[in-house]
């Protein structure tokens, strides 16, 4: 009897002292996404506290609509108000089109300051892999292409994306050169990009992502999706106003020794790389194809891809020339093209099925001097 009393006393004491407290206000303060009427692509770098917003050519920089995805309860405000700021419309017309914004967490404790750069751009068509984005706090390479403005137009810039931010989560890299996607010397001309399929260690095994293929693509890497749905994390494409004819360039490739599928070695299978360029319809500027549908979507109008027969091992710089072929019985419409309703993505990967964790650790693809050949307007 008394034991019963004692027991119930204990649980009563435990229950009373363990009451769930009132929910605290959220302390998260970051920019998780950025969209807008003119926004083609936003590269968010939380390490740098920087967002590079690429808008289409001809966008009115004095009236940029920016919708930020923020953590629950957080708010965002430009550090200095400018004429023309109304609600989520901001004036980026002055100076170098760069402004500081402060994100404030719901609990008002965390206030990171982000630099937001709005850059009108058009996709360049030749890629040299010579430049890296200056990013002091970022532990990996970010490739950058720049073609200065011609008399009539704007400068053409491209910030390449890669799976490097995802690989950072594994904790496998100590140096920038430990990442799957790196810049190296010894290119066809000066520097080039090296893509290597890497082991993801115990962390990768835990999340059932056993390998990380080196990849480089036009688009954005969505880190939030990196562990729950890796192919979806790689989103491809940027607005494009020309009719592409072919994708040309140079490569070297060596397959890794052991082909694995979900971490299990497979006999008789050899890894190969992938290079492709895809043009697709994007009615809405926020629409992107990703690793799950970039080759299969019915939005695809034209595709240039290296075939299995062509994708051979070679230790010499070897040219590739991939013609664009119409897909889904579609043709590029001139009016839609002029309206900017097409997007073009270019993808390089050291393991063709790397997005599904099939490939060989050590597969290495070098790429240099790539050019997108287009019809003259």
């Amino acid at each position, binding site marked *: 009897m*008394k*034991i019963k009393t*004692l*027991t119930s006393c*204990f649980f009563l004491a*435990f229950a009373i*002292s*363990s*009451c*769930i*407290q*009132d*929910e*605290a206000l*959220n*302390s*998260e*303060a*970051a920019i*998780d996404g950025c969209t807008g009427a003119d926004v083609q692509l936003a590269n968010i770098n*939380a390490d740098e*506290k920087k967002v590079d917003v690429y808008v289409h050519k001809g966008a009115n920089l004095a009236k940029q609509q920016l919708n930020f995805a923020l*953590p629950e309860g957080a708010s965002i405000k430009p550090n200095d108000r400018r004429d023309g700021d109304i609600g989520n419309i901001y004036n980026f017309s002055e100076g170098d089109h760069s402004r500081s914004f402060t*994100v404030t*967490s719901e609990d008002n*404790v*965390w206030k*990171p300051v982000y630099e937001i750069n709005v850059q009108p751009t058009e996709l360049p068509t030749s890629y040299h892999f010579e430049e890296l984005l200056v990013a002091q706090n970022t532990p990996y390479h970010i490739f950058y292409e720049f073609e200065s403005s011609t008399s009539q137009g704007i400068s053409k810039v491209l910030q390449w994306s890669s799976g490097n*931010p995802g690989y950072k*989560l*594994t*904790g*496998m*890299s100590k140096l920038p050169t430990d990442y799957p996607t790196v810049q190296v010397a010894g290119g066809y001309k000066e520097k080039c990009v090296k893509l290597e399929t890497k082991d993801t*260690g*115990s*962390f990768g095994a*835990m*999340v*059932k992502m056993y390998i990380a293929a080196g990849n480089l693509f036009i688009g954005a890497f969505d*880190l*939030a*999706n*990196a*562990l*729950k749905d890796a192919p979806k994390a790689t989103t491809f494409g940027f607005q494009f106003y020309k009719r592409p004819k072919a994708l040309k360039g140079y490569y070297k490739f060596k397959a890794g020794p052991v082909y694995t599928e979900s971490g299990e070695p497979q006999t008789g299978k050899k890894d190969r790389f992938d290079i492709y360029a895809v043009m697709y319809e994007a009615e809405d500027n926020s629409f992107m194809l990703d690793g799950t549908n970039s080759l299969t979507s019915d939005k695809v109008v034209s595709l240039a891809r290296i075939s299995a027969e062509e994708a051979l091992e070679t230790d010499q710089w070897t040219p590739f020339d991939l013609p664009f072929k119409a897909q889904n019985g579609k043709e590029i419409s001139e009016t839609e093209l002029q309206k900017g309703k097409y997007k073009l993505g270019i993808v390089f990967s050291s393991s063709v099925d790397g997005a599904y964790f099939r490939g060989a650790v050590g597969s290495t693809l070098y790429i240099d001097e790539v050019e997108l050949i287009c019809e003259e307007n």
Partner: protein
Amino acid sequence: MRRELKKIIMKKYNIIIIILLLTVVGATSIKAQEDRTHILGQSYLRGWEYSLKAGFSIGGTAPLPLPEEIRKIDSYVPSMAISIEGNATKWLDEKKIWGLTLGLRLETKNMTTEATVKNYGMKIINTNGGELEGLWTGGVKTKVKNSYLTVPVLANYKISKRWKLVAGPYFSYLLEGDFSGHVYEGHLRTPDQTGSRVDFTDESIATYDFSDDLRKFQWGIQLGGEWRAFKHLNVYADLTWGLNDIFKKDFDTISFAMYPIYLNIGFGYSF
């Protein structure tokens, strides 16, 4: 001569005797049994009493009060945790009302919980030494399985012939510790509040293991009661309440202290 020697041992090495009793009970010869009965009889007259206890522990290793990071306890499984103890009690007065008990207990304190948390400090360690650190919002499954060697030092107060209350501090040494689990259905903000968001859903989980960060020495207070059912057989219940954090001082991933609070119920045999 032999008996006298044993008496000296009795006086000086009570604890060792307890350990011996603990380990050799059930495996002794009738001769030894007779000897021991004799010794026990002698020491009983001098106010000494010995007993063996066996029971199980039920409770939790938890922060108190629950911090604001913990939003909801979704499940709790105490799981079986056995304890065995040998102790010696010295009655201080003629009537045997007040006494002092020194014991040695081998015990495990277990539990498994699933909780929903918000901005809960989390660190996932890769075998190559890399770390993924951040704040977790979502589900956390925690498994605690700690074995201790515990020395309770208890004051005894006999209410009646059958009832006895005990209270006092205990000191534990962690023999084997396991504090691990995984996070699921939520998101990690890494490396801190202002970092990037990484979502985990469905199949994607991340395991963590803080076993190496458990403190070796722990202490707390013990309160309990014992009821003498038969001449030798007792039923007891003891509440042990940890008073220092189960984690080491320099461990700051979990931002709040956690204490083991367990109820130990079982039977005792008094010699």
